[in-house]
């Protein structure tokens, strides 16, 4: 081991082994230093496992790193690059399995071989382009590929940018390109766990390897890993407690909250990159920072110099400088402006290129183009300003001007980021209608926030200074102290992954601890996933959030609904569509069968059998059964449970539910389909997102040009001014003032129609696992006022880990077990309200007292 104070010689990746260089000095102090670092790394792996950070692949990678680090650190310096390459290969094989890993190495060998071919540069570029097009055709499936679908993001993450930097280094002989450094560079240990990976420069990778004392590099790495964990924990807090659904933005304060939160979500990327580069430091790669206090940039060019610095350097090296040198014959300033413009154009295009390799489709949208275009213009303007103004001596004190600049850049970026993450420019622009709505408390809160921002932003955080002394190699005591603090930090974060620890916290802190400890989706992403927004995978990429993992794990084609699949038949009027009879399909990976009446249920006769109590069940997808097999929806499970108990009369539950059904559609279903079965009881379903479901129903009605034969709905559509051109978000906003009115009329009409048919109306309040009950309490009041017997099933999952009750991380519809719990809860509620006949026939009148 090299001394902690004297710089180690670069390992000279192709150098021959020599006794002098290979000499290893292992002391007790070195062992203690390595030990405390290994312990921190092991605890980081535990944090990743307990908090389920990223994917299981990251846990595997962190375990490999924790095990390999002490061995690697105690090796002779000359062996370390080779050892890193071997460790990286081991990580790849463990995560991808040998066959897929072999495919990566095979493709990599061809690409690297092409770079190293002894032919002219132009020929080489042409050959690389042909290889790239071939791979792209395999990626899109144009050429059938034997490669597993999940391999492409890994392949893309490894080669899509780093190959260009490797080729650049090869061309200009910037660094040795022998077997081991090349293998280590592409296999690079943490990469297999991260589709989004910092663009590590090959030259920096080689030249910075052990270019400073070992423990200085290791300590820096461990510090950055801990910082990454903190960023990721903060990200989860922002994600769950600060971000908002744009459709819920109704005041100036919420507008500010929504806008700032979109930029704050970038913490995830900086957290990941700190973690990645930190791990690389523990194998001696003394790479520069990837991010540097980017929320405190004082200009747009300053931001460009602080955020994702590896990307900035990549663009400088391969685009900006080459463009500038070619253009400078037209004058320095012209060349600067054109080069900057080219950089932003290329960044936009390369972002689409990246999305293509990671997700299989390029990413071109108007908000995306506007984001890069506007940011490019802002950087151009700042470039010209900075070029022309006289440089003044740096000030080390607080300055109002600096504070205003920092706040201005942060606000500007937040606005741009909110545009970027919006579904459309119209949606983004409509947010600003809320700016006029505010309250005194909101204004005071915003004033306090601004004052705090002024205080913080006025100082020159992280500004370059000549007086700063180079970082010294840490003494053993200092390293142990810092290690102890980090162990305490990591241990505390890991503990948040334990439900028992979280439940011991004060009640007020528990939601925050749960947000850090659990990787669930926030309300906005759940809602968007549910309505198929993330069917365009690039939308998930654009938000760059936790939803990316959920979407990536989701089986292909999951989001396509029954109508999109063409398995329904059209129905005129508000119903729009219905299930056809005798359908036999596999839907969401599960058998999906309908009976002769087009119900997802077993066979029933139209005529009610004698001694039978018949229940018609109406509702949306969570009643129909979504992502579960035939016989697993809760109404079917309840019917089976009651049959097993031998109740008399026999109870039939007929499932008339259909995905996406609003209350109005449930009304139409009852009238057009269920009433003819002469049910004794009708169960209507209300979920916490009825207003969104109703809005989507109206949008579909308008888009289809369907006749709206329901008077109250036709009136509201007219009053709200909804047109066929409106998107979902527009309809939600326009209907907002009428939400309660619509629900009230639908409930009243349902009660009247059910009573007229001689049945009893009851209404189930149901939510999906992990879905907040939200406005269900108010809905219950309205239902009771309308004359329904209210059956509250919203507590059906109490006492259970709700994440385990979803059909998957990508979809919160209740799984078979959750449906069993719902069946139990429904049985309990039916008995409590005496709606379920017991062994003696129920003498209660079929007409409820409230139905008039």
């Amino acid at each position, binding site marked *: 081991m090299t001394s902690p104070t004297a710089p180690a010689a670069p390992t000279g990746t192709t150098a021959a082994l020599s006794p002098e260089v290979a000499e290893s000095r292992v002391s007790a102090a070195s062992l203690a230093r390595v030990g405390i670092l290994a312990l921190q790394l092991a605890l980081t792996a535990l944090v990743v496992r307990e908090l389920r950070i990223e994917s299981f692949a990251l846990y595997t990678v962190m375990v490999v790193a924790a095990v390999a680090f002490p061995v690697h650190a105690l090796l002779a310096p000359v062996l370390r690059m080779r050892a890193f390459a071997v460790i990286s290969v081991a990580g790849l094989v463990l995560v991808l399995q040998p066959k897929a890993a072999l495919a990566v190495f095979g493709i990599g060998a061809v690409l690297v071989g092409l770079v190293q071919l002894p032919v002219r540069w132009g020929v080489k570029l042409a050959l690389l382009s042909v290889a790239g097009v071939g791979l792209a055709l395999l990626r899109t499936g144009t050429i059938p590929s034997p490669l597993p679908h999940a391999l492409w993001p890994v392949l893309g993450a490894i080669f899509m940018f780093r190959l260009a930097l490797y080729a*650049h280094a090869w061309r*200009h002989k*910037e660094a040795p390109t022998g077997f081991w450094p090349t293998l280590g560079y592409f296999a690079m240990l943490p990469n297999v766990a991260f589709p989004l990976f910092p663009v590590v420069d090959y*030259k920096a990778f080689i*030249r910075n390897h052990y270019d400073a004392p070992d423990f200085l590099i290791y300590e820096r790495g461990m510090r950055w890993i801990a910082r990454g964990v903190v960023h990721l924990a903060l990200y989860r807090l922002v994600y769950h407690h600060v971000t908002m659904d744009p459709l819920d933005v109704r005041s100036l304060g919420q507008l500010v909250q929504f806008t700032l939160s979109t930029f704050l979500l970038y913490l995830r990327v900086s957290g990941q990159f700190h973690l990645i580069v930190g791990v690389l430091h523990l194998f001696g790669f003394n790479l*520069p920072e990837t991010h540097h206090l980017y929320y405190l940039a004082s200009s747009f*060019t300053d931001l460009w*110099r602080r955020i994702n610095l590896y990307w900035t350097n990549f663009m*400088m*090296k391969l685009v*900006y*400088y*080459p463009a*500038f*040198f070619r253009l400078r014959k037209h004058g*320095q300033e012209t060349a*600067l402006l054109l080069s900057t413009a080219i950089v932003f154009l290329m960044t936009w295009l390369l972002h689409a290129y990246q999305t293509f390799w990671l997700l299989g489709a390029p990413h071109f949208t108007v908000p995306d183009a506007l984001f890069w275009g506007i940011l490019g213009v802002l950087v151009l303007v700042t*470039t010209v300003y*900075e*070029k022309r103004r006289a*440089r*003044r*001596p*740096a000030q080390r004190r607080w300055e109002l001007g600096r504070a205003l600049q920092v706040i201005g850049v942060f606000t500007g970026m937040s606005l741009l980021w909110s545009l970027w993450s919006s579904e459309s420019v119209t949606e983004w622009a409509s947010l600003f209608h809320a700016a006029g709505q505010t309250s005194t408390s909101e204004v005071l809160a915003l004033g306090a926030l601004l004052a705090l921002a002024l205080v913080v932003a006025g100082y020159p955080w992280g*500004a*370059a200074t*000549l*007086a*700063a002394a180079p970082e010294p190699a840490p003494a053993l005591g200092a390293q142990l102290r810092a290690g102890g603090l980090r162990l305490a930090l990591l241990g505390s974060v890991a503990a948040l992954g334990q439900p028992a620890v979280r439940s011991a916290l004060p009640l007020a802190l528990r939601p925050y601890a749960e947000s850090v400890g659990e990787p669930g989706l926030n309300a906005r992403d759940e809602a968007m996933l549910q309505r198929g927004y993330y069917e365009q995978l690039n939308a998930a990429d654009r938000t760059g959030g936790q939803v990316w993992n959920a979407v990536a794990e989701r089986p292909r084609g999951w989001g396509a609904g029954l109508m999109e699949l063409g398995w329904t038949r059209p129905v005129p009027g508000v119903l729009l569509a219905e299930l056809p009879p005798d359908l036999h399909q596999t839907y969401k990976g599960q058998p999906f069968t309908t009976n002769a009446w087009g119900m997802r249920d077993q066979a029933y006769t139209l005529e009610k059998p004698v001694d039978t109590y018949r229940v018609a069940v109406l509702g949306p997808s969570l009643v129909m059964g979504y992502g579960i097999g035939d016989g697993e929806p809760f109404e079917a499970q309840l019917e089976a449970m009651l049959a097993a108990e031998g109740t008399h009369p026999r109870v039939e539950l007929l499932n008339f539910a259909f995905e996406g059904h609003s209350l109005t559609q449930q009304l139409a279903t009852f009238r057009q389909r269920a009433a003819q079965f002469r049910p004794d009881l009708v169960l209507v379903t209300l979920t916490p997102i009825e207003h969104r479901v109703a809005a989507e129903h109206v949008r579909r009605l308008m888009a289809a040009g369907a006749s709206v034969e329901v008077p109250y709905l036709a009136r509201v559509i007219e009053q709200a001014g909804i047109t066929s051109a409106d998107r979902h978000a527009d309809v939600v906003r326009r209907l907002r003032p009428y939400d309660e009115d619509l629900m009230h009329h639908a409930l009243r009409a349902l009660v009247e129609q059910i009573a007229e048919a001689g049945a009893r109306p009851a209404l189930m309040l149901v939510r999906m696992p992990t879905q907040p009950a939200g406005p269900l309490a108010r809905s219950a009041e309205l239902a009771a006022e309308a004359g329904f017997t209210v059956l509250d099933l919203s507590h059906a999952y109490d006492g259970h880990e709700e994440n385990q009750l979803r059909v998957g991380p990508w979809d919160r519809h209740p799984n078979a077990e959750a449906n069993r719990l719902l069946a139990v809860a429904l049985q309990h509620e039916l008995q409590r309200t005496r709606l379920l006949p017991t062994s003696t026939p129920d003498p209660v009148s079929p007409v409820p007292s409230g139905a008039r």
Partner: protein
Amino acid sequence: MPDVIPQVKQYILDHHLPGENPANLTLTTPLVSGGILDSLATLDLVAFLEGRFGIELEAHEVDRDRLDTLEKIAELVQGKLARV
């Protein structure tokens, strides 16, 4: 062979570190990695070096390895001049 370091040092002090104590700018002060020379300043420095010493730099030579300290800059310029 011109004495490169004093001229470059003066240029950097005048244009990129106004008001700074010259003694703080040493031969090994990190200029690019230390954030003193950003991309714009680096290109200004390139223009200065080419104009003052009559050399020509290429795009791939504009990097931290060659321009990060006064020492490295002097090495780059003298290497170029030796080839003229």
